[in-house]
């Protein structure tokens, strides 16, 4: 496994490569808000052999550059990931997305259909069914909260994110890792940029085109997700022809961390379709 930075239109994106090159197409993993490539750590070793694996920190997350005014909307991230595929000489890949990463994956499958060989959506955003009430309230309070210390803002976020975990020890460790890049004043500003970009405009815009997705698609959901209800997954399955939906009992939002074997099992099946 090796990590590298790639310049995509003037922004430095971090990714790490894993897996083994073989006959299978590459697999690209995209995380959501406000996580990082870490969310896939326990899934990556379980990816079937013969696939080049690329795990990305989206712009403004993990080790990638801060946004500093660049477009961090779903569409903006999708364009940047296409740029990353170009930089890595990947023409055609399976895209796996969690949370906002699932929205990015949907956009790629709709707007760049010949670059997406297969699609996997895990507790994904979709339609106009996100963001949740908590995010909307937090955004409404941004004129106030953007002047508060980063530690104060992050303490609220930390408590909210923990609701997405079944196992609190795991959640505490991961949430600390996810929030670390946002703990400085500059980090707080980046966090606010992400908050402002949490918007369903793109997933709503592509809704009528989901029926045109021709890539084999698998949808996987933690049944008890408090942020993105499984109804989104059911609707995605209805809209995307031939897609499968698997629901994991008890698991909440962070399915890649809390049910990595199930994620790998569904991905393995998808890669043979």
């Amino acid at each position, binding site marked *: 496994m090796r990590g590298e930075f790639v310049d995509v239109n003037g922004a430095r994106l971090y990714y790490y490569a894993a897996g083994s090159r073989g006959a299978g197409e590459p697999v690209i993993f995209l995380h959501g808000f406000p996580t990082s490539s870490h969310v896939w750590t326990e899934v990556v070793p379980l990816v079937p052999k013969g696939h080049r694996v690329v795990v990305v920190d989206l712009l403004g997350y993990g080790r990638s550059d801060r946004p500093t005014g660049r477009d961090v909307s779903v569409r903006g991230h999708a364009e940047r990931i296409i740029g990353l595929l*170009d930089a890595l000489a990947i*023409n*055609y890949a399976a895209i796996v997305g969690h949370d906002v990463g699932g929205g990015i994956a949907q956009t790629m499958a709709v707007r760049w259909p010949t670059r997406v*060989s297969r699609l996997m959506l895990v507790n994904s955003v979709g339609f106009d069914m996100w963001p949740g009430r908590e995010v909307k309230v937090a955004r409404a309070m941004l004129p106030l909260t953007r002047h508060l210390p980063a530690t104060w803002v992050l303490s609220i976020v930390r408590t909210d994110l923990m609701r997405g975990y079944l196992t609190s020890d795991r959640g505490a460790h991961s949430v600390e890792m996810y929030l670390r890049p946002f703990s400085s004043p500059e980090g707080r500003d980046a966090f606010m940029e992400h908050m402002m970009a949490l918007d369903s405009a793109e997933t709503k815009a592509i809704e009528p085109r989901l029926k*045109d997705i*021709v890539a*084999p698609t698998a949808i996987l959901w933690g049944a008890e997700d408090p942020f993105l209800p499984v109804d989104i997954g059911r609707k995605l399955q209805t809209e995307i022809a*031939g897609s499968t939906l698997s629901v994991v009992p008890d698991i909440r939002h962070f399915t890649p961390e809390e049910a990595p074997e199930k994620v790998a099992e569904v991905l393995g099946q998808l890669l043979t*379709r």
Partner: protein
Amino acid sequence: MTSQRLDAMRAMVAKNPNNPLARFGLANEAIKAQLYGEAAEQLRLYLASYDDEGNGYGRLADALVHLGQVDDAREALRRGIDAARRFGHPTMANEFEARLEELGE
């Protein structure tokens, strides 16, 4: 499973013959099933009606090489290079150039 997908994509094309992306999807399923003649036919129809960014031409070239139609594969790669450059995918264009060299150009 591939056979089911192939049948489903054939049905989708039959239902929507003017949808180029359905043809692209059918071509990909045909490639998985090693039905290269059907794949090449569907990719040609797709490329005739869709402004492809390059990858479709590359996949057509793959199918044509399997069919032993090397001259046509070279032509597909040349068109793919043009499309990839036009849409700002230089590494894809470079890869197709390398494949052209492998095919003896």
